[in-house]
């Protein structure tokens, strides 16, 4: 199924100029440049192509990431949203091929990373030592629960020092650590502290400092503010956004908060049950969601911000990934489900004529399935 979708995304579908991940990180700039991404023409730093990650569990084989393609360009903030269990964290872990469980493994696709030296490598084929050299240096990772990601019996400074040393940056580490801590709004004195002596917000600032310690090209942040006090979530998020802008680092931001996406992201990918169902520039995607799932999500959010009658609601719960629904995985919950939806997975199709505004995986957009001119807007097609 992912093969079919993948083929479509690679432009095998007639008339589709390019799908997500058509122009690779490794390909020269300017050839087939898509207008999709903001900023225009920026070099991709990370490109996932049809990445498949499998977890061997007691209940059988689970594919939390099932053919995911996504691109993060230099200096961009890319959001990855989806409900709980949709595979966002597993996608984040797949980037560095580092998982919280030994049972998980990347089994397919390419993970193309442009390093600081401009060289592009496929992390999927990298050996353990080369991969270790990438972790924490080329890619920084920020986790959800900041306190538990710091070793309770080592000082904050020691843990940052270990990281610098691991990448041959041990010389002058003390000064660098002081600088890093200052950058994230902490006193350099925090280096001598242990995690239990810091607040959640302070721990997450340390997490941000660690992610940026070796001046990486990319930072992957998995729900960096979810575990924090509501009162400081905005503070930490703003800090992250400011550092991202100042240092020009690309950021893949995982969240289930659409407000956060609207505030800081340039581009957004919507994930459902292990697959990308829609992607595009944030402004356009939020203004005109094309996929029924995105429409449902946004309808819910709009309801939170300004009371408005909800027409599309997402019912039911996340599908069981051991036995995912056939065809379009959203079909059991989709208000527009058609017979074909149950049989075949929809390819990612351009959201507009020139594919400038991203892609959406829904049969409703296939002129061969539904007559041309069908537009799906929330609250309209569902009317009485």
């Amino acid at each position, binding site marked *: 199924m992912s093969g079919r979708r993948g083929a479509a995304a690679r432009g095998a579908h007639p008339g589709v100029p390019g799908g997500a991940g058509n122009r690779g990180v490794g390909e020269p700039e300017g050839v087939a440049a898509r207008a999709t991404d903001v900023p225009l023409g920026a070099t991709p730093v990370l490109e996932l192509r049809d990445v498949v990650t499998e977890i061997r569990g007691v209940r059988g084989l689970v594919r939390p990431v099932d053919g995911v393609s996504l691109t993060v360009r230099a200096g961009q903030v890319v959001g990855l949203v989806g409900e709980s269990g949709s595979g966002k964290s597993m996608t984040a872990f797949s980037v*560095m091929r*580092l998982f*919280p469980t030994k049972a998980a493994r990347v089994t397919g696709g390419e993970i193309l990373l442009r390093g600081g030296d401009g060289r592009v490598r496929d992390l999927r084929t990298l050996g*353990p030592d080369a991969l*270790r*050299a*990438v*972790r*924490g*240096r080329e890619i920084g*990772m920020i*986790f959800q*629960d900041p306190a*538990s*990601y*710091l*070793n*309770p*019996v*080592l*000082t904050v400074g020691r*843990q940052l020092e*270990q*990281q610098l040393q*691991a*990448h041959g940056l041990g010389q002058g580490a003390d000064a660098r650590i002081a600088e890093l801590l200052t950058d994230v709004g902490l006193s350099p004195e925090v280096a001598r*502290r*242990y995690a*239990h*002596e810091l607040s959640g917000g302070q721990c997450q600032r340390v997490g941000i400092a*660690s992610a940026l*310690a*070796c001046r990486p090209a990319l930072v992957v942040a998995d729900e960096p503010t979810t575990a924090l006090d509501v009162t400081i979530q905005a503070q930490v998020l703003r800090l992250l956004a400011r550092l991202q802008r100042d240092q020009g680092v690309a950021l893949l931001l995982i969240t289930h908060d659409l407000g956060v996406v609207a505030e800081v992201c340039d581009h957004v990918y919507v994930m459902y049950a292990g697959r990308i169902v829609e992607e595009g520039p944030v402004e356009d995607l939020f203004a005109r969601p094309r996929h029924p799932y995105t429409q449902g999500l946004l309808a819910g959010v709009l309801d939170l911000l300004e009371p408005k009658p909800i027409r599309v609601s997402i019912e039911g719960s996340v599908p069981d990934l051991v036995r995912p629904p056939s065809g379009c995985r959203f079909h059991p919950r989709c208000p527009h489900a058609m017979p074909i939806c149950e049989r075949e997975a929809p390819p990612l199709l351009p959201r507009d004529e020139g594919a400038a505004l991203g892609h959406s995986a829904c049969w409703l957009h296939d002129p061969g399935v539904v007559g041309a001119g069908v537009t799906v807007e929330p609250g309209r097609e569902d009317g009485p």
Partner: protein
Amino acid sequence: MSGARGSKALGAYALERLLNAVPLVLGVIVVNFLLVSLAPGDPVTALIGEYPAPPDYVERVRAQYGLDAALPERLLRYLGSVVRGDLGFSFANRQPVATLVIERLGRTLLLMLTTVVFATAVGIVLGVWAARRPHSAVDRGATGFALAGYSIPEFWLGQILILVFAVGLGWLPAGGFRSIRADYAGWAAVVDQVRHMVLPMLALSFRYMAITTRLTRASLLEVMNADYILASRARGLSERRVLWEHGLRAAALPIITVIGYNFGFIVAGSALVETVFGWPGVGRLMYDSIFTRDYPVLLGILLLVSVSVILVNLLTDVAYALFDPRVRY
């Protein structure tokens, strides 16, 4: 926030713990004294021998050793002399208890300390080895070994070791502290000493090693699943540094605790092992003093053992506090 975690604070903490231990030690002395006094058998009989003696002679001996007074009076007198540093006089050896014990203490400490160091080192290595590949052949081997070590009594193991390595293969001496007849000097003396130590140390190590192996494996397996281990990998640390600097560092806390709290087993085990191997240490002295009803010696050793177990537990807590910044003191 506890910014001032200096050695001064730790010293004060240790001193406080030490002072708290004083009533405990006094309590231990009283309980030991009562237990020993209530035990069947009369030390005077042991002193004089089993053959009949004139009653007035028996009474004189009894008075000479202060055994004619009432129990509370004897207890008070004993406490008084212990506080003054006098552990009494051995009936059987006709020597001050302190002299007797100190003469043997060095040998016992030699045996116990080498055991603790050896068993802890081997246990940690085996545990790490097992934890790195759970459910592998290595792991199953180590776990099986740990289970065996747990259930084999020291004295039995000691006898088996003697049968195999001393009697059967003739590689090592069957017992004793050093060769009495040969007059070794310098390096040869050290080798001779080590050869005598190997078997008793192995016998005494086994259980301790098993405990350390099992514990290291279990706590390392748990620790290596922690979020901060994942984070240290994400920072690019090598597996070796992740294991030793993060994993074992965190797993060290339960290991330290167990080493400390199981010290009592080593003390008890050493009495058996010293007896089996004829190792002239405190354990052997205790064994003998029980059979000769040499109560002052027995009481002195029990006191020494209690104090050392309390001290080791205290050291354990101090080490724990040093290792774990979360401990408040």
